[in-house]
């Protein structure tokens, strides 16, 4: 099954810039469906990025983060060919993880 996580990690000199797009409804709990019923909140709470066993980034999210959430950050380290490990978990206990190669 295809991963819900898209990552583009590019090494620039001593740093690596990471962009990610995650497929997730990020339902806030405030929106009604076609029948007028509230769609329950379903959103990613935590996203983590690891490189060489080091936690290089953590995102703590609430329901105000947009659907199919995007993230961009940079960290010192990483070179072309290295592996980045990405994982997320949501308020319903669902999760996904993937690895990406730094370009």
């Amino acid at each position: 099954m295809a991963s819900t996580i898209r990552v583009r990690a590019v090494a620039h000199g001593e740093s690596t810039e990471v962009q990610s797009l995650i497929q997730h409804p990020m339902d806030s709990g405030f929106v009604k469906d076609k029948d007028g019923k509230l769609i329950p909140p379903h959103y990613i709470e935590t996203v983590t990025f690891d490189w060489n066993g080091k936690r290089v980034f953590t995102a703590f999210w609430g329901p105000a983060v947009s659907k199919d959430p995007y993230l961009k950050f940079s960290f010192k380290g990483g070179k072309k060919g290295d592996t980045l490990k990405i994982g997320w978990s949501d308020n319903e206990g669902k999760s996904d993880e993937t690895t990406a190669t730094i370009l």
Partner: protein
Amino acid sequence: MRMAIAAIGRRAAACLVLLLALVLPPASAEQRSDPAADQRAFQAYFRKAFPSVGLNDFANGPYAVDKDMRKQWEEIMQFPPYDFALDDGKKLFETPFKNGKTYADCFPQKGIGIRQNYPYFDRQTGEVVTLDLAINRCREKNGETPLAYQVGDMAAIDAYMASTSRGKPFAIEIPDDPRALAAYEEGKKFFYARRGQLNFSCASCHVQAAGKRLRGDILAPALGILASFPIYRSDWGSMGTVDRRFISCNEQVRSVAFKPEDALYRDLEYFLSYMSNGVAIAGPGTRP
């Protein structure tokens, strides 16, 4: 009087009428259809209204004509939200039908790099064929159930096929066939006709108010407006095809929308695409 006509004689009167008919112009006030002239005038209007916008940039709709919106668009395009649909579309396009055939077997050039030629006028069936219609005809021909229009898999396949045509300018043909001209004229009529409780035509927003605000939204110019389809609209949180937008636009002016791929919508798409000949395909795209 009666006696005078009787005097001339019936045959002579008939000859006179025939003579006059040959010499005088037709009684009807209809002008001859001239799509090429329409296209020149259409494009000239928008190039003059937006002198700093390059022809291909018209494909970007509101982002071509508003700086603050363009900045938000550039940010989103760093990692476009249609990425998932694009990948799904490629997979769907390449997956064989139950009978072993694929979409490539139905389309010219194996379906790659052809989106800019749609819609086209099918002289055999006498109707306008859009890409979506062609996709479903392909499925039916190969024993598969047709896809729902507007959303989902149809939008995903559109997204993939459009992406293979990026950079190729719209090249819509209107053959020298009265039926094709009639379809074009129907589409043109639709575009300029007012409808709905709000009594707007497509032109009210996308010609007269292009680049201006409709409440909080900036209106896209009609030139190139279909070149970025299918689109991921933030408002929908998902992909939508040309049908989806035609239907939602009609509903927004509070008119009763037509069914997807209704002949009128196909004619409208034919007209709008022909008007945009020369604008490069940029789909899939994103919109507010």
